[in-house]
């Protein structure tokens, strides 16, 4: 049996998969980065590993999609397309795989059909395998992506999202598989997407078996997370029962919420005479040897809480959201409340909201609601816009049952029946005028954008522009190693830094002194390739986008809130101002909604009073401590 090389046609690849005597492995590098390192593993690190990974003989390298498209631009300052191009140069043999959220693409809300198709067309130039899912398993939400992938001649890998509970029966999932096949035919790879790492090995084995019994022809790809420490068990059962491809990751970087180590999977399955097709074990080991040295630079992005989370079977948070949830709890100062949120409130909310699949954007809705329920006092008292949309059916129908009426009433108000009647149902999003969007982008960049820049802009307008402007000012920063990119506390004077540019030439930067001059500016002296340079920086206090930037502590922000001065508690986008000037508010009322990464968090007021001034606009990017609005107690 042979590995499947990049360049093999989709039809030929699926033929080969059907005849496989053994199983294939997908190196799930992107999901590992997202689950255990807040998506921060740099292209620089992936490029170091590229050559060995290419030799290792994986079915595919899952390296783009999910939240990574956004984080690539926003936090790693790398063009998601350029990343794929550079990796392809060093990995000519391995297929690249993405994770696409159906109508939500790589974002958190539904996109217009023409944007979906244009985006898939552009990414399909680099991506061979398209894993597509919908968090409600609502197949029509995947249709546009499935069609475009087929048109591009790439491998379609639609998912059934998996979860547990009385409704999650084999019958239900078989019905979903049939719905998918009705759209795509059987020349696909079917993914069982176990993003939470839920269920026992035996449960997964049964499900795979049931599908194979009904659809003998169907190639099954099992995707799981190791959050409870037992995904290897599930993988083994999946393969024994007929799954052809499984997900795992390089051991040098494996953590607690992502996929399990590749080599462990290989060793376990050897006991059952299952051969990892195409795999060069030496290259697998070599990859981790190369990566081993790099992990230390990513310390700051690993989870605040160490250890497996077997309680995932209770709270069901997907591996990809574990890290960011814990980070939010830590930054928001409610880490101590996590047991209550995770083990009591979240399961309760899940059940109340219909026991759908806890994966983007559904997992964010469940999480945000649970946090608000615990933090805000009154349950469902501060519903997010996304929760409203869920109840209105904007994402699709509830798969099993609808929430109880009192929840509708809490979220949509007293006349919720009328609201549901008038606004309910799947949103019909009109197509965007792409020529007009291109013209807008042209104006913002001051030059003609290329197709890829337009795609990025359509996904995340503000962040794409910020990123493009960043690259014009600072160049291709992806050539910098994590030891520079993530450096904390500045460098030592006299320290010599090295980096290799895109052409393969090494550059040398020596750190000189950084005196502050009369004007208050700091002059940073560097020797760059043997020639001195000086870079001047304005004083830090006056830097920042919102005028004078004062870095406030959590306590200071809380104190201000107690005085009616409502500030942003963390850096993020202001999604909504929920009140108007002159409006009367009560302690605990939601006055605004902030969004960081993909989490929406309601901002509540700490006092009763009247809104006297609104200093921010919805859609605005906020820094920690930026003013949102003011409430006066005695008017």
């Amino acid at each position, binding site marked *: 049996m042979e590995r499947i090389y990049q360049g093999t046609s989709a039809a030929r690849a699926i033929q080969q998969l059907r005849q496989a005597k053994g199983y294939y492995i997908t190196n799930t590098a992107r999901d590992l980065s997202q689950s255990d390192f807040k998506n*921060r593993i740099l292209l620089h690190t992936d490029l170091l590993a590229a050559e060995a990974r290419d030799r290792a003989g994986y079915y595919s390298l899952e390296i783009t999609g999910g939240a990574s498209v956004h984080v690539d631009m926003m*936090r*790693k*300052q790398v063009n998601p397309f350029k990343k794929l191009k550079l990796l392809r140069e060093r990995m000519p043999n391995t297929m690249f795989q993405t994770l696409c959220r159906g109508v939500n693409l790589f974002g958190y809300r539904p996109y217009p059909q023409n944007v979906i198709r244009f985006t898939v067309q552009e990414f399909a130039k680099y991506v061979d395998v398209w894993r597509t899912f919908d968090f409600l398993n609502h197949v029509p939400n995947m249709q546009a992506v499935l069609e475009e992938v087929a048109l591009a001649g790439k491998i379609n890998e639609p998912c059934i999202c998996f979860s547990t509970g009385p409704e999650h029966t084999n019958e239900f999932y078989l019905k979903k598989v049939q719905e998918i096949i009705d759209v795509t035919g059987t020349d696909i790879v079917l993914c069982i997407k176990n993003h939470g790492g839920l269920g026992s090995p035996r449960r997964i084995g049964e499900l795979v078996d049931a599908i194979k019994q009904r659809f003998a022809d169907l190639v099954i790809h099992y995707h799981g997370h190791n959050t409870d420490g037992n995904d290897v068990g599930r993988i083994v059962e999946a393969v024994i029962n007929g799954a052809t491809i499984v997900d795992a990751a390089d051991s040098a970087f494996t953590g607690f919420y992502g996929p399990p180590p590749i080599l462990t999977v290989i060793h376990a399955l050897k006991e059952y005479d299952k051969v990892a097709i195409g795999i060069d074990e030496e290259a697998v080991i070599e990859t981790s040897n190369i990566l081993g040295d790099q992990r230390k630079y990513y310390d700051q992005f690993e989870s605040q809480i160490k250890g497996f989370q077997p309680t995932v079977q209770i709270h069901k948070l997907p591996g990809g959201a574990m890290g960011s949830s814990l980070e939010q709890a830590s930054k928001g100062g409610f880490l101590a409340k996590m047991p209550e949120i995770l083990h009591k409130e979240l399961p309760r909310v899940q059940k109340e909201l219909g026991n759908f699949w806890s994966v983007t954007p559904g997992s964010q809705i469940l999480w945000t609601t649970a946090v608000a329920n615990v933090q805000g006092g009154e349950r469902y008292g501060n519903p997010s816009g996304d929760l409203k949309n869920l109840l209105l059916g904007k994402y699709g129908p509830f798969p099993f049952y609808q929430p109880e009426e009192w929840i509708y009433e809490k979220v949509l108000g007293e006349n919720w029946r009328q609201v549901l009647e008038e606004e309910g149902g799947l949103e019909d999003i009109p197509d965007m005028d792409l020529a007009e969007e291109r013209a807008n982008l042209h104006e913002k960049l001051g030059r003609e954008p290329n197709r890829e820049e337009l795609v990025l802009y359509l996904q995340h307008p503000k962040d794409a522009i910020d990123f493009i402007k*960043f690259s014009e*000012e*600072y*160049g*291709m*920063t992806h*050539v*910098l190693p994590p030891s*520079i*990119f*993530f*450096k*904390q*506390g*500045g*460098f030592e004077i006299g320290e010599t*830094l090295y*980096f290799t*540019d895109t052409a393969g030439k090494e*550059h040398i*930067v020596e*750190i000189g002194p*950084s005196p502050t001059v009369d004007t208050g500016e*700091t002059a*940073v002296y*560097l020797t*760059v*390739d043997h*020639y*001195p*340079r*000086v*870079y001047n*920086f304005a004083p*830090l206090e006056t830097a920042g986008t919102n005028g004078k930037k004062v870095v406030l502590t959590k306590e200071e922000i809380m104190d201000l809130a107690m005085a009616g001065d409502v500030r942003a508690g963390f850096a993020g986008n202001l999604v909504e101002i929920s009140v108007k000037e002159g409006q009367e508010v009560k302690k605990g009322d939601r006055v605004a909604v902030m969004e960081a990464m993909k989490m929406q968090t309601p901002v509540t007021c700490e006092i009763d009073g009247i809104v006297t001034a609104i200093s921010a606009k919805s859609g605005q990017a906020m820094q920690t401590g930026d003013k949102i609005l003011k409430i006066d107690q005695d008017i």
Partner: protein
Amino acid sequence: MEICQPFLVFLQQHLREAVKKKILVANRGEIAIRLIRAIQELDCTAVAVYEKPDERSRHIRLADEAVLLGNGPRCDYLNIRKIIAAAKHTGADAIHPGYGFLAENPGFAKACEEEGIIFIGPSSKVIADLGNKVVARQIMADAGIPMVPGTKNLPHGEEGLQNAIEFGRKYGYPVMLKATSGGGGRGIRRIDTEDQLVNEIPVARAEAKAAFNDDSVYLEKVVLEPKHVEVQIIADKTGKTLHLGTRDCSIQRRNQKLIELAPSRVANPELLEEICQTAVKAAKAANYFNAGTVEFLIDKDLNYYFMEINTRIQVEHTVTEMVTGIDIVRNQIKLAFGYELSFGQEDVQIRGHAIEMRINAEDPKNNFMPEGGKKVSVYRSTGGFGVRLDGFVYQGYEIPEVYDSLLVKLTVHGFTWDETVGRVKRCLKNFAIVGPKTTIPFYLRIVDDPDFIKGDFNTSYLDTHPHLFHYEESIGEAGKLAKFIAEIHHRGENPFAS
């Protein structure tokens, strides 16, 4: 004894060449350094002068002695009395005026002559004659040098009108209608049609009468989109007058040259030879002595017209030095001290091509606005085969606002034109100047322009190639990344990653 013979010849030659004098350099900037170098190579002593705003200038440090003239700005470099006094005070035998300031002031040359100080340049009389347009034109006309066609003063009445119409029909429009007593751009109007001509003559006369109390006017042909080609000449006191070939200085902004090359790219060697001979004839007609430049315009049909003679060393003399191997400044000094030219016309061989680019602290995108007052925080220059730099800035130098914006002249020499263009492009890329904006990114567009590469340009080049102004200011990829590193260092974290 046989060993001693060559040594003796060397010694005699050396003694013959050694001037052993003290020479005052009455200038600043790059040309002051150029002169000091030639002076010191002749084993003479160089005296610099400077104004207060120039006290950090490098020419002071390179000279053997230096005299502060005063607080300036500019007025002390133009003060004949002060400069003569400085020369007397230091015991200078001679003064080299460079270009600009007092270089073409006949009064300065005359003052030197009267004080017994050798003025390195032509006599005050020659400077005076050639500096006066009317006199210069007359000398050249008498010598049969081709001039831009023009009428004599137009007679009054119908006869004058008829002469004017005939002239217009013969040479075509546009023509310039000029007031004979006008000057400095006043009393000149462009005429595009015969009707306009008929209407404008009386108006121009009335205006000239009012302005200059002289209503005489005349017509001159307009040379459209000419090439600016000039000939370097050099003459000793015996009247031996040689040319050192042509230069093209067509690439200009607001009549100020930016890029010069030697020899001219006009693909007609016979014509260029004829122009050189004409230049020698013109110089002889003016009794020219020392180094000078005869400027011509060449029109589209390859007609050439005398423009003027510059009685000084030119900024762009370097290109001629590169292609001939002859040190013009050295020869100027020696000629001034009475030496005769030690070579003949047959020794002047033009080898290859040279291009000079004036790297100015200016913003080409902002109408070449000078960037004076800024500090040169990074200065990295270039080197290698066929490369010459004449500059005076250094890292940390603050460019005074009160002087011109020329930082450094990049001159390269190559065996073929393509090699020369490739070399100048490479050198421009080697430069790193941070602080003031410079003309470098603009020149980098020019060296990629097909018309420049073909040598197809005239004085309208910048106006007809506006796309050249669409360039990016860049500190280079490594510079950008270093800036990012500086940011991470300064903030103690990567502000974009958190």
